[in-house]
């Protein structure tokens, strides 16, 4: 969506016409969901996060600076929300029943794939920090520019380029290990 189109949608909302926000949610929800899904590694958490992100965006709409693209502002809220969620998880196992049950590896694999599309990708993503995961998804998958990502993550573009290359290499290495070794290390992996 171009900026002018977004501006048109925002004006009535800022005048108090709340219903107009429905179009904003409709326009951006799929890409923001995709981002949360890969960062949080879980469909249910991503769906909950998506709701919170849009509610936060609505509450703070008056503070939105129009010199920044609206999608970058929304991603910034999503990024901060995911960082908070992951911090909250820090002392919890993401999949707590790993500790409580004695399932075989194939069962663990199957469980991961119920919440995320691939156990191997899940484990490889778990090897990355949230910042690296964000770079991998936004730059490598969504093909956002480093300039746009710098607005989201508050980092300079030169360092982002380097960090992205390192994150991609790290992901490839972790993924190839998973593909070779299966989910043998699943018990110790956490998306934190």
């Amino acid at each position: 969506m171009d900026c002018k189109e977004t501006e048109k949608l925002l004006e009535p909302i800022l005048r108090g016409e709340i219903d107009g926000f429905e179009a904003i949610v409709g326009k951006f929800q799929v890409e923001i969901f995709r981002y949360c899904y890969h960062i949080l590694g879980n469909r249910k958490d991503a769906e909950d996060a998506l709701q919170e992100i849009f509610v936060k965006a609505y509450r703070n709409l008056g503070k939105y600076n129009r010199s920044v693209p609206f999608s970058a502002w929304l991603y910034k809220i999503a990024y901060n929300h995911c960082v908070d969620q992951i911090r909250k998880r820090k002392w919890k196992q993401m999949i707590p029943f790993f500790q409580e049950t004695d399932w075989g590896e194939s069962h663990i694999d199957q469980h991961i794939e119920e919440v995320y599309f691939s156990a191997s990708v899940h484990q490889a993503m778990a090897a990355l920090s949230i910042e690296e995961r964000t770079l991998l998804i936004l730059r490598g998958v969504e093909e956002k520019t480093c300039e746009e990502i710098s607005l989201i993550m508050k980092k300079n573009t030169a360092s982002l380029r380097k960090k992205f290359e390192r994150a991609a290499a790290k992901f490839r290495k972790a993924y190839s290990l998973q593909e070779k070794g299966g989910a043998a290390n699943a018990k110790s992996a956490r998306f934190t």
Partner: protein
Amino acid sequence: MQNRHDLHKDIRELFRDPRIPQQIDVTQKVMNRIQSKKERLIVKYKVALLAAVGMFATVSSVYAAAEYFQLKNRQGEVIYQEKDASLATGTEIQTPDEQMMAFLQKRSEIEEKMAPGTAAAVYIKENNPNKKVQTIAKPFEFDKMEDLQGKLAGMVELPDTLPGGFAFTTGSIEYDVNGDYNKEELYKMAEESEQDYVLVPLQWTDRINNIIVSYSAGEDSMQVVISNLEGVVDNTVYHVNQAERNVEKIIVDQTEALYSEEGNELKTVVWVVEEPAMKLEYRIFSNSPLLNKESAQQLMKAFLPSR
């Protein structure tokens, strides 16, 4: 030559797996939340302001000097602000038209018919060009302090009497409403109904939205409104012609409050209490001559939690 994006084609393809969920729709859930009273609090004043500004604009196009007042907590953070209407952003001067007035009248009639302690999602067919669904909440009402206290279960302490000989008369509690309704279902009901509105009952959550308590002393009365501020961002109230209000800051037991008088009649005291469990705004209104800057401090003490 391979371009930069092709270098990472393997990653891109991995993350374009058809097993990744492609469909998601949280629109209704988000809209239900932001249309609930709690989420609307942020813009509530702005919306109320539109009408007020509109009416004032017809008699005067000159706004008063921009003044504002703030209350801070013990950490020095701003927890409440009052500003002149001219400082409100994102608002537009407009006068309520006949259609809006008719819609609000109908809404008020429906609310009147509802039993205390009930809530509903209401769709009014007439004068509703944007097909808005309204959440109407009718608070629980009490005429005995012990019943009100019983319902609060110690969450908020209320005095039976106030300095100046004021005694409890009535009280109400409104909780947040679980706004989980289906708009399309209401539209369908409306199509099939001959009535001019349709509604579906809604459930309360266990989160208090506000408590209103009335006290009286002979002919004089006083109203105390306690609002739950949890989740409220930027607690700012905009007043039309703020400079015409006489506002003074008072401090009681290290708690800041604003005492204001408007036209020698309506007097208000407002302060915010931050407790680990709740963040509450207290607002006392009265026309009584018994409420003044000195008695306001005594009244505050009656509500401030003992430390």
